[in-house]
């Protein structure tokens, strides 16, 4: 069974569109994250949720809105997509104070 899963794996869309990426973890962890990996492979934290509550919100455009319907899911919605949003987005989860487990990533391409 996949511990942290993301859908879709690939997402190609036009500028200005709105899209969502879904993340689910079946590890029973209470904290989930979204990271962005840019074209130079640099990974940076975007958001963190603990038990559906936002606890980390880095300097990210407000076009990005995370939503956590329950502690096993953390979705990322992006409005008015821009070329610079093209990246790989990784979801991760962790138990309290523990190791972060990453999903396979979603490669977003904005044309």
């Amino acid at each position, binding site marked *: 069974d996949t511990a942290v899963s993301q859908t879709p794996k690939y997402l190609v869309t036009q500028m200005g569109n709105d899209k969502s990426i879904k993340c689910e973890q079946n590890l029973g962890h209470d904290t989930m994250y979204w*990271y962005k990996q840019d074209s130079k*492979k*640099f990974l940076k*934290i975007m958001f963190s949720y603990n038990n559906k509550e936002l606890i980390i919100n880095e300097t990210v455009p407000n076009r990005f809105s995370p939503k956590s319907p329950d502690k096993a899911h953390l979705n990322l919605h992006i409005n008015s997509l821009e070329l610079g949003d093209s990246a790989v987005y990784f979801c991760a989860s962790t138990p309290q*104070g523990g190791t*972060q487990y990453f999903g*396979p*990533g979603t490669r977003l391409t904005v044309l």
Partner: protein
Amino acid sequence: AQSVTQPDIHITVSEGASLELRCNYSYGATPYLFWYVQSPGQGLQLLLKYFSGDTLVQGIKGFEAEFKRSQSSFNLRKPSVHWSDAAEYFCAVAWGTGRRALTFGSGTRLQVQP
């Protein structure tokens, strides 16, 4: 701001040779230290981690890393590299306790020559 530095962007080694990838982090509260590996087009796989205790930690695939507090370093080593080890390696640090996000280094790309 707290930061993680991987000074080597790209390393090439011959198969069977030893490997050391460097990682330094800025001073802060108790660091939790990790090494992840990313194969092309793949996600991040945890190689090993250090939270406390013995400063030499063993990981998967024959990797080990040593935490040196005095040097703020957490270098990754492998005695004999295999062609399948070619990948991107990321050092990551979480400072303090609790549900801290990871700060990643910029990565080191490892190429393995036959």
